[in-house]
């Protein structure tokens, strides 16, 4: 496909807290020949509200989403959770609309739409991958992120034990049931540490915020890095930590 016109849906969390992930998506998609736009009218998919029980607020955000992204060939989000919210829940909230069907999580877009698994990345670290619940079960991205990671030069991919177990984030669940959330996190961290990986990656900054928050508290030295940043990293322009 030549020069698809792609809108980046950064998601409110990544836009605000993890700008490097969104920059990585832009860099990666442009490297693969896409024309990338970031409509500044975008804000949030409404998942925070919807999942906490505030459906009316979520409904108006779903309408906003449909308006903002109407004119694009594709919308790409670096989040299985938010892409899942758009595809699975928006139709029920604001009626089915074009941007809803054209919204993809990053790994889906790369593999299914662009048809690439080798994105020319270089990332010389030992990495383990956590398949976040909404990517895994709501979108069914399956092996796609792993297929992408296996093609990254220098990267040593190590399998995460009990990978399909939830990390315990769950949006407001992490606050409302903080202790249960932490118990789930403890098991996830133990699995990550058992792999001996230096980096844990995933397709969602929300879950990574939770996992790396725990790893950082314990001074484990293991970092959480979004899949997009690994895939954007090249020998010419390697990934660097931002303060």
């Amino acid at each position, binding site marked *: 496909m030549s020069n698809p016109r792609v809108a980046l849906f950064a998601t409110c969390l990544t836009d605000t807290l*993890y700008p490097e992930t969104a*920059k990585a998506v832009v860099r990666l998609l442009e490297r693969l020949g896409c024309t990338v736009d970031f409509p*500044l009218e975008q804000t949030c998919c409404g998942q925070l509200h919807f999942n906490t*029980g*505030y459906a009316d607020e979520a409904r108006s955000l779903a309408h906003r989403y449909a308006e903002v992204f109407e004119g694009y060939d594709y919308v790409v989000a670096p989040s299985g959770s938010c892409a899942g919210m758009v595809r699975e829940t928006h139709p029920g909230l604001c009626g089915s609309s074009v941007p809803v069907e054209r919204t993809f999580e990053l790994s889906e877009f790369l593999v299914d739409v662009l048809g690439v698994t080798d994105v020319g990345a270089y990332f010389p670290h030992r990495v383990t991958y956590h398949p976040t619940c909404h990517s895994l079960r709501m979108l069914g991205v399956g092996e796609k992120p792993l297929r992408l990671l296996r093609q990254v030069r220098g990267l040593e991919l190590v399998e995460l034990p009990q990978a399909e177990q939830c990390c315990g984030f769950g949006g407001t669940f992490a606050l409302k049931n903080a202790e249960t959330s932490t118990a*789930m996190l403890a098991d996830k961290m133990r699995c990550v540490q058992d792999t001996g990986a230096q980096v844990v990656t995933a397709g969602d900054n929300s879950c990574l915020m939770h996992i790396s928050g725990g790893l950082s508290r314990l001074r484990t030295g293991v970092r959480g890095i979004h899949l997009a940043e690994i895939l954007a990293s090249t020998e010419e322009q390697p990934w660097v930590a931002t303060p």
Partner: protein
Amino acid sequence: MGRNPVTWLGSPVFPKAAHTALADTQLRANLRKATTTIRDKRASAVAELADWEELRRAGEAIKDDVLANLDTYLLRLEESVTARGGVVHWARDAEEANRIVLDLAREHGADEVVKVKSMATAEIGLNEALEAGGIRAVETDLAELIVQLGRDRPSHILVPAIHRNRAEIREIFRREMSEAPVSDDPRELAEAARRHLRRKFLSARVAVSGANFAVADTGSIVVVESEGNGRMCLTLPQTLITVMGIEKLVPSWRDLEVFLQLLPRSSTAERMNPYTSVWTGVTPGDGPSRFHLVLLDNGRTATLADEVGRQALRCIRCSACLNVCPVYERTGGQAYGSVYPGPIGAILAPQLADDPSDEQAASLPYASSLCGACYEVCPVRINIPQALTHLRAKVVRNKGGRNPEALAMAAAAWVFADPRRFEAAQRAGSLSRLLTGAGPIGRLPWPGSKWTATRDAPSLPKESFRLWWRRNRG
């Protein structure tokens, strides 16, 4: 409004109950071992069937048809049961159902009844009601017996004593049985229970059972079990009283084929359960000479009225959702404060309780990270995450808008409604770096403190992505 005993009186809200459960290392070890084992076994039992997805869809379709035409099927069932010599009773709520069973037991001169494990009778607190009426109810399912003798509460739909290990069980038996087991060897424990129960089976005149399925066309009631104790209850006593929820129907005999494949693989990871008992009215000279069927509503009609929530009534009580639930695995079933724990309990119990003032019931739809593992394994495709968010919306409506969470949510919605406000909020946040510095944040004020108690928080970047985009690309 009368209180529906589907949630246990005095149970704390879920986060509080979880706090206690999470501190119990023995409980967590017992649960982890049990759920991990059954989870793996279920996965391989299901993988053997190439048509599992079709079976799930068939199960879903049959149950949806039953729910859509419940009135017709129930009347048909009543007619078939009556034609075959049974007596049908209708019970609106727990109190009515308990009174019917108590009166029947008294009428037939029983001071003790034997029971085959039944969720419906646990839901209505039948044992306690009988006790208050001077009649002892003896549970004959092994796990249920352990719970009863331990004066404990169940913690799992299928294995109510899943939270106990064998050393604990031996202690309970030693205290409560006339012939106590000599060791905690499982065979030894089972033998002790068998001796204990045998005496009960041979002397009981009245038995009370639940039902896994009832066939509308023929009036047949079906119970599936593993130990055969249920079959003793269903055949030896003179009077059999079955209490079943009105949603347990299937239209025809053929429909059972689907569920007798779905249920055992989902619940015990077996190709088929060891005992499937079917009884249809009464047969002279064979089995009980009197059969009563109590059809229990207890909140089901109200649940049926909710378009999204009603799918919970498809449930065939297999407990697969409990075994895969990461929340259940850490907290155990008692934290849910109901005979229906785990993901299905989190959507079923609050609906059956149907009481907006019940804070404990209102905390249950939030007892989930929405990971979706429950939906994936559900043999009748109950979209539990969907029902959970739907019920959360109901909780929010009942609470009204004047509480810290609702105000925070309204503020967030106001910010997200306009990209300029969102950008302003981001700028304000970036300024907070002056206070927190550039590294991870170890302590935040409430409600962020709930996060930073165990997790560092990321510091806000110097500029958000949208500011960067505006500067470089805009």
